[in-house]
């Protein structure tokens, strides 16, 4: 149903419009003055000021690979993350550990592990699906490169970003 919006009854000065323009100019001038004096601080100047200290625990940055406290790669190249990755950013070439390693008969390791950061959508499904808890989304968000090839994170880069994640794998941990 149509209804009528009541218009306010304006006084003569309000109808004249000019005093209100002056009032508006005063408001904007005060904003300008406060900005020039440095009293307003609303803008973060990005490369100099960063928000890193305030990133929440659950922040999903670049996916990385981690090693355990003994320096063993956690990834066993099961390729689950590769299969679940929605934008198909992950590419794993499965391989074995060298035969002189004491774990050679125990588990496998990826020969190559590439994450194309120009495709990654930071969804975190790889982290969620990993049975070995080898892949984690860390807090790096500024991923840059000068070519498409630069944007691919290879295995050594992934381990460098990921570092060590000590503790038992939750899956094998009776306490969890």
């Amino acid at each position, binding site marked *: 149903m149509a209804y009528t919006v009541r218009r306010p009854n304006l006084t003569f000065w309000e109808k004249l419009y*000019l005093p209100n*323009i002056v009032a*508006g*100019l005063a*408001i*904007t*001038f005060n*904003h*300008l003055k406060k*900005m*020039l004096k440095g009293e*307003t601080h*609303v*803008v973060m*100047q990005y490369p100099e000021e960063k928000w890193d200290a305030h990133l929440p625990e659950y922040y999903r940055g670049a996916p990385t690979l981690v090693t355990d406290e003994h320096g063993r790669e956690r990834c066993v190249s099961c390729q689950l993350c590769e299969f679940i990755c929605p934008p198909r950013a992950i590419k794993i070439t499965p391989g074995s550990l060298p035969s002189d390693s004491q774990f050679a008969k125990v588990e496998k390791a990826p020969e190559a592990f590439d994450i194309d950061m120009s495709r990654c959508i930071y969804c975190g499904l790889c982290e969620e699906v990993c049975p070995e808890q080898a892949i984690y989304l860390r807090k790096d968000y500024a991923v840059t490169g000068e070519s498409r090839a630069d944007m691919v994170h290879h295995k050594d880069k992934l381990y460098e970003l990921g570092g060590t994640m000590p503790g038992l794998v939750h899956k094998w941990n009776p306490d969890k």
Partner: protein
Amino acid sequence: MDFLNDIPWMLIAASIAKTLFLIFGVVLPIVSYTVYAERRVSALIQDRLGPNRTGFPISLFGFQKDLQLFLGGLGQPVADAMKFLLKEEFTPGHVNKFYFWLAPVLAMVPALSTLAVLPFGNFLFGQKMVVADVNVGILYVFAVASVGVYGIVLAGWSSNSKYPFLGSIRASSQMISYELSLGLSAVPVLMIIGNLNLSEAIQYQIDNGWLLLPFTDGKLTLRELLLWIPVLVSFIIFTISMFAETNRLPFDLPESETELVAGYHTEYSAMKFALFFLGEYAAMIAGSSIIVVLFLGGWHVPFLPINTLESSTTPSGIALGFLHITAFFAKVVGILIFFIWVRWTLPRFRFDQLMKLGWLYLFEIALVNIFITAAILAWVK
């Protein structure tokens, strides 16, 4: 015969020198830095920072860092100009090519042509600081400035696209409507001055105090006090009409981004777009200069000596000549900053409100104002 041969060449050389100085030395730099000021002031008013990074690119010449001056970002106009020059000049297939190319020129040229009659200084090096000291000064300004609407109309029409077309229709009706109140509000000023020559207008204001501030000659008579009322009214109407003429907010309906994409220059890119942009700002400068000349005493600085044609080649005369030029452009820049300030304060008018304001209020008030001025001039001595 030497006399006949020599004089015109001197005049032509001096005119070319003055034109080049005015356009490339003063107006175009002011235009580019008005764009910078527009972005910076708008940002500061909205609690942002605006472009504060781009320095002068001296690192291209082997220096360690770019040159950053006090507020930062002063190299932005240079970068903008480079960007406009290097971008792809894209002409859509559906446009009327000839008029599409003609329109940006027609937007830029009238704005710069109006500067020809503006006295931007007194005397310098034995020359009067005005390119053409004609007796129809103010009429020439109105005539040439109204040609500027052709650029916008042709741009909208030749683009063969609905948004530019709507923008140009709005521009033409708006500019034609507000030219009335613009012209009529200048009439009281011309009646008081009694001359159409802009140099004479300034001379009158030197003798009798600026029209808007009649006490700048050190005294205030009853006649000046009474004339102050119509002058104030015509100043307000003239300024409002100038906003509408230059398509500035709150009257920027021809290019209102929220309704018409970008209005009449939607289909333009690269340097052709930049010409519209520069034309708009050059028109702003021309408009502010006219306000300064008619109401704010032009190049005159109160309580300071004025140099003459004879003294303008002596060191003190040259210093005074430069001071007058600086004073003129300082006033112009002041008005430009006011333009920017208003733009980021007021919301846009609706089109019917714009037409109502122009035809029902400003036009009538300006008309009545003429009679009030005439009565004061006739009866108060």
